[in-house]
C-alpha cells in the first residue's frame, strides 16, 4: 500500500525501497552474525578458537570438534532423551487439550464454569513460582531424576484446552447430534468426528508445545541429576561447565543442539509463525 504511494512520485520510490532493503539487510546481518560465528567456530581447531585477535573464518576447517563431542560425550543419549520427552509431551498435550477443549465447548455439566475459570487462572501463574512445590510433589511420587519427571507434570496445558475449545466451538452442534442419532458412542464422536477437524489447531499447538519442551531448561535443571537422563539444553550447559575453555567443542555441541529445531523450522515456517501469533494469546 505505502509502496504504491511512493511509486507514484517519480524518482523517490526506488530510493526509499532500496533504503528499506538496505536497512533490513544490515539488521539481518546483525541477527545472523552470532549464529554464523557459532557455526564457523565449530570448524576451528582449539588453538584457533582461542586466538587473539579472533579468527573469523577457520584457516583449516576441521570436523574434530564434532568428532570429540559425539564420541567423548553421550550425545546420542541426550538427543534420544530430548526426543522421547518432547514427543511424549506433545502427543499427550494434543490429546488432553483436544479432549478437554471438546468437553468445555460442547457439554454442559455441573461445575463447568468454575472448573474452566480455575484453568484460566493457572495461566497467570508462571512456572518459576511453583518450582519448589512441583519439585517436592514429583519427589513424593518417586519420579525425580527420571524422564517421567519431565513428562508427567507436563501432560496437560490450560492454554491448550483454551485454544482447542475455541476451535471446537466452531464445529456445528447438529453434526454431533446427528452422529449421536446414528448411534455413535461419545468416544467415537470425539475420536472420529471432532479430532480430525482440528488439524490446523493441532499443528499450531503441537509446534508450540514441542518447541517449549525441546528448549526447556529450568525444570530439567532441578529434576535431573544423572548425565544419562539429561535432555539437550541441560546437557549443553553441563557440557560447557566441563569444557568451558574449549570454545570449539562448546560451539560444535551448540550447533548439534539447535540444528534439529532450525531444520524443522525451515520446513514448517508458516506453522511456526502461526504458533507464535496464537501463543501470544497465552498471556
Amino acid at each position: 500500500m505505502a509502496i504504491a504511494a511512493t511509486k507514484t512520485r517519480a524518482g523517490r520510490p526506488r530510493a526509499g525501497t532500496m533504503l528499506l532493503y538496505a536497512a533490513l539487510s544490515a539488521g539481518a546481518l546483525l541477527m545472523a552474525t552470532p549464529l554464523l560465528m557459532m557455526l564457523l567456530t565449530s570448524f576451528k581447531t582449539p588453538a584457533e578458537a582461542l586466538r587473539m585477535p579472533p579468527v573469523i573464518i577457520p584457516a583449516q576447517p576441521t570436523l574434530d570438534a564434532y568428532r570429540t563431542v559425539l564420541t567423548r560425550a553421550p550425545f546420542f543419549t541426550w538427543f534420544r532423551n530430548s526426543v522421547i520427552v518432547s514427543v511424549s509431551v506433545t502427543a499427550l498435550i494434543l490429546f488432553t487439550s483436544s479432549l478437554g477443549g471438546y468437553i468445555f465447548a460442547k457439554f454442559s455439566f455441573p461445575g463447568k464454569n468454575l472448573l474452566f475459570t480455575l484453568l484460566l487462572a493457572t495461566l497467570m501463574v508462571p512456572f518459576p513460582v511453583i518450582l519448589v512445590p512441583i519439585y517436592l510433589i514429583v519427589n513424593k511420587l518417586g519420579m525425580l531424576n527420571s524422564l517421567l519427571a519431565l513428562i508427567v507434570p507436563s501432560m496437560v496445558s490450560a492454554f491448550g484446552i483454551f485454544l482447542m475449545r475455541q476451535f471446537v466451538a466452531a464445529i456445528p452442534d447438529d453434526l454431533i447430534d446427528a452422529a449421536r442419532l446414528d448411534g455413535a458412542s461419545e468416544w467415537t464422536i470425539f475420536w472420529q468426528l471432532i479430532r480430525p477437524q482440528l488439524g490446523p489447531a493441532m499443528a499450531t499447538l503441537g509446534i508450540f508445545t514441542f518447541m517449549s519442551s525441546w528448549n526447556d531448561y529450568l525444570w530439567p535443571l532441578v529434576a535431573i541429576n544423572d548425565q544419562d537422563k539429561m535432555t539437550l539444553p541441560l546437557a549443553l550447559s553441563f557440557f560447557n561447565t566441563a569444557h568451558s575453555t574449549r570454545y570449539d567443542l562448546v560451539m560444535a555441541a551448540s550447533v548439534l543442539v539447535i540444528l534439529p529445531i532450525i531444520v524443522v523450522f525451515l520446513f514448517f515456517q508458516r506453522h511456526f509463525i502461526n504458533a507464535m501469533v496464537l501463543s501470544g494469546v497465552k498471556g
Partner: protein
Amino acid sequence: MSTVTSSETAGGRAARQRRSRAPGHAARMRFVALALTPIMLLFFIFSFLPIGVSIFLSFYRYSPLDMNAPFIGLRNYIFAFTKDPAFQASLENTIKYVLIAVPLNIVLTLPIALALNRIKRLKPFFRAIYFMPAITSLVAVALIWLYLLDPQSGMVNGLLNSLGLPRRAWLGEPETALYALIVVAVWQDMGYNVIVFLAGLQTIPDTFYEAAMVDGANGWQRFRHITLPLLSRTTLFVTVLTTISYMQVFIPMQVMTHGGPLNSTRTIVLHVWDQAFQYLKMGYASALSVVLMLMLLVITLIQFRFLRTNWEY
C-alpha cells in the same frame, strides 16, 4: 412482548430439561466424568496444589535436610526485605532489566515489522532470519554470547579493538554485565515481537491509508495517525507479554554469570533457584516466589484495566 420472551425462555428451559433427562444424557455425563477426571486430577496435582503449597510453605522455615520445620509467620518475608541484600539486589536488577529491555525490544521490533510489512520480495527470507534466534535454545544462545563476549578471543572486543576502542570484560564488570545480558536477551527474542507486530499490521485495512493519501497525508502522518493508534492494542499486548516474560529471566544469568559479579546480574528467579536448590532453604524460596507471583499479578491486572479502556475505540 415481555411475556412472549419470558414464555419462550421458559419453553427453552423446559426443552433443555427434557433433553437432559432424555436417553443418552447418562452416557454423556459418564463420558464427561471419565474424560475430565484424569485431566483435572493432573491440573490439581501439578497446578492448583503447588500454588497452595507455595503460599503455605512461605510461612515455614522448611528445608528437606531438616526434620524440624517450624511455623514462622511472616518472618521469611521480613527477612527477604530487611536482611537479604542479595534478594534486594535481585529485585532491583530484575526491575532495571525489564525497564531497559522491554522498551529496547519494542523500539527495535516495531520498525522491523513496519519495514517487513512494506517490502514485497524476500519477506519470508528476512522474517526467517529475524526469527531464527527465537527458536534456538536459550542455553545455546547464552554459550554463543559467552564466546562473542570473551575478553580475549571474543569477536565483540576484537571489533572494538580494530576500531581503536578499549577492550572490556563485559561480563566480568558489575557496571556492564547486566547491559551485556540485556543485549543477549533482546537479540534472542526480538523475532517473537516482530511476528506479533506484523500480524497486527496486517489487520489494518489498506483503504485507511489510501484515504489518508487522497487527503495528502505524508508517511509520518500516516504512521502517527493511522498505524500507531490502530496498533495500540497490539503494542500494549506485546509490552505486557514481554514484561511478564522478562520478569522471569533466568537462563542467561544462570549460564553466563551465575548472578555475578557482585550480584550485579542476580535476578528474582535466579535467587529463588539458588535459595531452594543450592542452599535448600525451600520455605524461604517459596516466600520469594510468592513475592514474584504478586508482582506478576499486579502487572496482569494493570493489563486488564488498560485493555478494557482501550476496547472503546
